[in-house]
């Protein structure tokens, strides 16, 4: 399959980070200057240790290194892709993103332990198996992957090599939905190609819902997230049915995932409600706080908000697509290498539920 322009952008995406060594760990005078690095959006924070360590190794106190990051005091979960974290925690994108790195004092009560690159790799493979299960009903294709394929897959993800990734992932046969409408990059003409036998499939989705108590007009005014309790994490697939004459929009998909944030009307409209599955929360959260993202639709919001919830913002891969955008295009172009689509939502909720 030729690599789409959008996929290229997604894979090449990187966030500029300005990483400060926490003051408690500075042992030299003057303190080391912050490190400026580009972190791939589809990558993970622990993989940056090779880039960060040389900056700070001379200033560290003696001891064993346990790497962890925090943003404005909030320790960052390491199994979440970097781009997702950025989109979630910085309502107003902060470029460069100022993070604080710690090499000591791992907060074991908040973060699960990370031993190094291998932990990240296994977490990625785990997500891949989850996605395969959701798509195919079993994860045989992942488990039967050869050692060299696995290594190549992971290396391609680490290095951001989309061609290598395509080679390996095409063997996995995890294709879900064809693009109903796609723009051919060379020609630039909008030609619809409605051939596509879309099978009835399930799309793996991870939703991150940041609930805010007050209304805000400007993104700058969003209060900062100081605890993971404020974020709901929803791991639900979306069922797709092909319907003639109609395509599934993003709006429909979100509605299907989070019906409570939409009114009765909108519930009836979206047909994808029927096959809604509420999946159990991923065990990664250890059953603590659910991340419920309330998507605040800025424009084209047809359904009126109920008194309780209002979706303020939907962010996928750092962009805020229109609600009318075909969901199939979103899935095929904006999904992460682990075959999951990570969506960040900002939701205004009058009463915050912390369960």
């Amino acid at each position, binding site marked *: 399959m030729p690599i789409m322009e959008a996929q290229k952008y997604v894979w090449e995406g990187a966030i500029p980070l300005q990483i400060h060594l926490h003051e408690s760990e500075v042992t030299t005078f003057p303190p080391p200057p912050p490190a400026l690095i580009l972190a791939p959006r589809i990558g993970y924070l622990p993989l940056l240790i090779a880039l960060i360590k040389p900056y700070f190794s001379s200033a560290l106190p003696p001891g064993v290194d346990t790497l962890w990051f925090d943003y404005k005091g909030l320790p960052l979960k390491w199994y979440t892709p970097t781009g997702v974290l950025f989109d979630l925690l910085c309502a107003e994108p902060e*470029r460069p993103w100022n993070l604080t790195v710690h090499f000591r004092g791992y907060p074991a009560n908040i973060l699960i332990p990370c031993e190094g690159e291998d932990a990240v790799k296994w977490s990625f493979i785990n997500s891949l198996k989850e996605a395969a299960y959701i798509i195919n009903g079993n994860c045989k294709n992942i488990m039967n992957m050869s050692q060299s394929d696995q290594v190549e897959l992971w290396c391609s993800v680490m290095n951001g090599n989309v061609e290598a990734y395509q080679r390996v992932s095409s063997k996995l046969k995890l294709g879900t939905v064809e693009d109903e409408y796609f723009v051919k990059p060379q020609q630039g003409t*909008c030609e619809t190609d409605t051939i596509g036998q879309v099978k009835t499939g399930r799309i793996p989705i991870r939703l991150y819902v940041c609930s805010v108590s007050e209304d805000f007009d400007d993104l700058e005014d969003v209060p900062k997230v100081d605890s993971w309790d404020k974020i709901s994490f929803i791991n639900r697939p979306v069922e797709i049915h092909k319907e003639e004459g109609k395509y599934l929009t993003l709006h429909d998909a979100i509605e299907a995932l989070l019906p409570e944030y939409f009114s009765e009307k909108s519930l009836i409209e979206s047909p994808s409600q029927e096959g809604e599955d509420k999946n159990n929360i991923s065990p990664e959260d250890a059953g603590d706080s659910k991340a419920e993202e309330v998507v605040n639709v800025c424009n084209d919001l047809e359904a009126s908000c109920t008194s309780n919830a209002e979706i303020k913002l939907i962010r996928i891969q750092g962009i805020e697509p229109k*609600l009318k955008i075909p969901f199939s295009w979103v899935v095929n172009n904006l999904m992460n290498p682990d075959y999951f689509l990570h969506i960040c939502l900002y939701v205004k909720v009058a009463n915050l539920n912390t369960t």
Partner: protein
Amino acid sequence: MSQEEIAREAIKHALKALRRRHLVEEGAHGPALIALSTPIISQGSEWKEKAENLETELQQCYKAQSRLSEQLVVEVAESRASKASLKENESQIASLQEELTQSRDECSQLKADLEEKIKALELIVSENHQIRAQLEEMIAKAKNAEAENKMLIDRWMLQKMQDAERLNEANALYEHLIDQLKASGLEKLARQQVDGVVRRSEEGAEFFMDSIVPTSYKHKINAHEGGCASILFEYNSGKLISGGQDRSIKLWDTNSGTLSSTLYGCLGSVLDLSITHDNRSVIAASSSNNLYVWDVQSGRVRHTLTGHTDKVCAVDVSKVSSRHVVSAAYDRTIKVWDLQKGYCTNTIIFHSNCNSLAFSTDGQTIFSGHVDGNLRLWDIQTGKLLSEVAAHSLAAVTSISVSRSGNIVLTSGRDNMHNLFDIRSLEVCGTLRASGNRVASNWSRSCISPDENYVAAGSADGSMYVWSISKADIVSTLKEHTGSVLCCSWSGLGKPLASADKNGVVCIWA
């Protein structure tokens, strides 16, 4: 708008948003960061390279420095060594110079000496020449003088010889006259003898007197009780000395047959007697292991010779010096005594007991007769055995007598034979025996007549036998004794002959 258009519109919008995002995020920051890091990286790598180069240079410099310092050490050591050797050489030079100056001085000194010596030598040479010339003159003179001397001596000798001849002639005449006188004297003597009167007017007359063969006894004396073992005549006199079992020594006058004196002091029976040549001392061998020396005049014991550990059975005194006494005892020793010192000067030990002893006439040799039948000669000075002769085979020698001239030795043995030995050759020159003659005891003494013509010996049957040596036959048998005859003695005057027997009776035969 159709759904399609709305969809496409939305997709385009999404793409635009992606592009914008790209520009803002990695598009903007990526190049900036790269630009920031490259110089640092490159600089860093540059500096690393520089540092490495500098390090290698430094290492090389260190190596070079160490090499140089090693060299330096070596050089310093060498320079020190050469300095030291230089000093040595300098000091050597100094010393050599000194030596040289010294030698020069010595040399000049020696030269001066040499010149002096040469001068002296020249002088001396010239003197020598002169002296030689003088010497030659003198030699010539001396020769002349010698020649004259010889001539004079010859003449003098001639004179002397003539004188001597004259003297000889005179002496010869004188001797002739003396001889004639002697002869006439002897004639006179011979005439006197016919008269029956012997006058001893000449010394040594006894040497010319014949020994008379006795025929009958003149006296019979009971001399000692218990037996008389030894009798002896004084030299050249008629006095008889006898020693007996009764521990006394009696002197008899044989002419009258009376007792002259008695010598006491002996503690045991007298086994043998001897008298010094000057007739002044009598020595007796006693069975009490001692010897006693009396002074005849005073009758007192002058010496008691102790040392033997058994009975002393033979004794003799030297005829030359009255000093040496030799005694033999049954302790298998022969002792030589010095009367002046008063003790034993030599002890000869021999395995066979000696029964009889006799001194030779020169007093240097002792004759001993032993129980094993041998006659032995000893040297008195060294005590060494000179020679031995088997005198009597398997029979003890009982008596040894030396003749007056000292040429013949008479030995008697238990084999009832009496042998005559020539002293010089130690060969038997005669053997005498008789059918009835039995030697009485181990110490029976026989004797030779003074003129060496006769031998007398006693027998166990109480008779005395007299043999003639020349005839080798008995010439007389004298029977008087009742007991066995133990000893006999012939007076130096030729007569009488005395004998003693076991009963202590002494018979004097004439």
